[in-house]
């Protein structure tokens, strides 16, 4: 209800659910986004330990947050560059989605399609992955204009520092 989608936004949601349309949008968005990459250099580090000893963290731009946390700002057409911390041991029923720029009705039914915390908990219990970080991170992946700078200069580095402080070896990123 708090998303208050207009009919135009609902129509856009339906159109972008068509894979070919989504790729066309991606191509257009790529032209705008390339300018935000500093020098073309891509950071890269190999995992230095077995996966069964590594600690993972989930990061999503699907608008995931706890029901008890403030929802992402749907009133600013440039989006919301803030993030929400999701505790690893949270009851999945406490997680909700605020993001009006994609159709998340399927994700509302099964959170795993955008934020697979349940699967990763299971992989830890199986011994496939060593452990999970105590906190994971939800962003809202519709960010435009000056707010891109807020994301790249403030909030994303904040999250990177928290991942480092938590001893995270790898991050698993899911878009929406």
């Amino acid at each position, binding site marked *: 209800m708090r998303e208050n989608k207009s009919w135009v936004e609902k129509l856009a949601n339906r159109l*972008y*659910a*068509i*894979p*070919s349309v*989504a*790729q066309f*949008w*991606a*191509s257009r*968005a*790529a*032209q705008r*986004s*390339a300018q*935000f*990459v500093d020098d*073309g*250099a*891509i*950071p*890269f*580090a190999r*995992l230095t330990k*077995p*996966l069964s000893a590594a600690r993972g963290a989930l990061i999503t731009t*699907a608008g995931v947050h706890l029901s008890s946390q403030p929802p992402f700002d749907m009133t600013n057409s440039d989006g919301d560059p803030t993030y929400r911390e999701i505790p690893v041991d949270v009851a999945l029923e406490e997680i909700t989605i605020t993001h009006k720029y*994609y*159709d*998340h009705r*399927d*994700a509302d*039914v*099964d959170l*795993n*399609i*955008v934020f*697979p915390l349940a*699967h*990763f908990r299971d*992989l830890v219990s*199986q011994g*496939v*992955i060593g452990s999970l970080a105590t906190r994971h991170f939800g962003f809202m992946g519709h960010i435009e204009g000056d707010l891109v700078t807020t994301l790249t200069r403030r909030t994303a580095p904040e999250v990177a520092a928290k991942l480092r402080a938590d001893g995270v070896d*790898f*991050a*698993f*990123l*899911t*878009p*929406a």
Partner: protein
Amino acid sequence: MSISIARDLTDAVGVPRAVFVKWPLGHPLGEPCAPLQQRTMIFRALRLLLNAGQPGVIEDLGFRWRRERYSEPDWSQLKQE
């Protein structure tokens, strides 16, 4: 490591490693209540995490939307090569 459902955008922003599927927005791990599909996506992403030898690799998984059958991955294969 990332899942990508928008290949050109992923390429433009320079993700260290990504697996790409041409699926609808909002479905990076696939369909709801399809755990084998979702776990296959996680498996393929983790496999790329272990095996990618250079930055910027985007592996096109080629999975067709709603036209594939999935089985439980063999997780014992996730060993660094």
